[in-house]
């Protein structure tokens, strides 16, 4: 049951502070999307309580939008659950990648951590794990801060988010801008740039051909595999080997 800290007591105050501060771009983005979701869900006939319950149980933006539209179209249990599974299957890749940084942590904490793995928390935590000041506890706080922001903003939207002007302050762009910045942090050499270009191109092509969001998994798997092949063949030396 021991973590890397053994029996040492842990001061959670700086950990919580760091995690919450790091979560702000995610919270901003979730606020915009969460309000929009709440408004749509309320129009589809859900109460704020039902909206909050879904955000708590599912905690996945696009799957919730799709779930609500299927519910209001009268779809049943199996189609909604199967669709949700397909839409959220991409988290397998994210959790697998995160597992590189979450070694020797007891399964109770991992179980709590897994709940908060989203596109956004994954991207932010993974970038920060390369930083020596970041650890799994801060990452856990970040996950759950984002979760609280999501639940609160979806419920707020359900109570009357239509009174807030859409698109104010460019808030709809917060997550795209965050992803762009996090891509910059990932570009640690020519090989990473090539992988990004391959992933982006394949994603666009697949998204035009196959409906849904399968393009995310397909493009990521192809691009990472191309990356391993290039590395094996000795193309595009990464900068990482040179840096300390």
């Amino acid at each position, binding site marked *: 049951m021991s973590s890397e800290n053994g029996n040492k007591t842990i001061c959670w105050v700086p950990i919580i502070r760091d995690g919450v501060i790091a979560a702000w771009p995610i919270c*901003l983005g979730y606020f915009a999307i969460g309000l929009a979701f709440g408004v749509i869900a309320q129009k589809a006939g859900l109460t704020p*309580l039902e909206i909050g319950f879904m955000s708590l*149980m599912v905690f996945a933006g696009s*799957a919730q939008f799709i*779930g609500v539209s299927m519910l209001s179209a009268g779809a049943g249990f199996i189609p*909604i659950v199967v669709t949700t599974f397909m839409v*959220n299957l991409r*988290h*397998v*890749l994210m*959790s*697998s*990648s995160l*597992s*590189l940084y*979450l070694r*020797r942590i007891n*399964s109770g904490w991992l*179980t709590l*951590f897994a*709940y908060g793995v989203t596109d956004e928390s994954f*991207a932010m935590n993974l*970038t920060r794990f390369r930083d020596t000041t970041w650890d799994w506890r801060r990452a856990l706080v970040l996950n759950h801060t984002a979760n609280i922001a999501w639940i609160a903003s979806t419920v707020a939207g359900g109570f009357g988010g239509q009174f807030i002007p859409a*698109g*104010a*302050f460019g*808030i*709809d*762009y*917060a997550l*795209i*801008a*965050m*992803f*762009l*910045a996090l*891509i*910059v*942090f*990932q*570009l640690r050499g020519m090989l*990473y740039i090539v*992988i*990004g*270009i391959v*992933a*982006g191109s*394949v*994603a*666009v092509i697949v*998204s*035009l051909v196959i409906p849904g969001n399968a393009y*995310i998994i397909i493009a*990521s798997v192809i*691009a*990472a*595999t191309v*990356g*391993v092949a290039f590395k*094996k063949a000795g193309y595009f030396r990464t900068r990482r080997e040179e840096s300390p």
Partner: protein
Amino acid sequence: MSTKYLLIVCGMGLVTYVPRWFPLIFLSRRHLPRWLVEWLDFIPVAILSALVVPCLITDGQPRHLDLLRPELYVAIPTFLFGLKTKSLAGTVVVGMALFWLAGMVF
């Protein structure tokens, strides 16, 4: 809250949670071969690019190519700003400000 809604949401929660949970539990205790560690190390840049690029240049349902979206021409200066400053906060603020401006101008 009806029982049907309760069941559907619990089902959605379960099928969302398991793919998040299983790899963490399964992989974090195993010694991974080097190629897999490399592959997983390439996943972040691949996923981020696969998430963002279609948002910038495709639109609609079904999706079609659209190179005239404000999302795209705001992304270019935002990305360059990120490259230049390596600042997450700055990039988010610049991106939002430019997108807001773009919404007022166009």
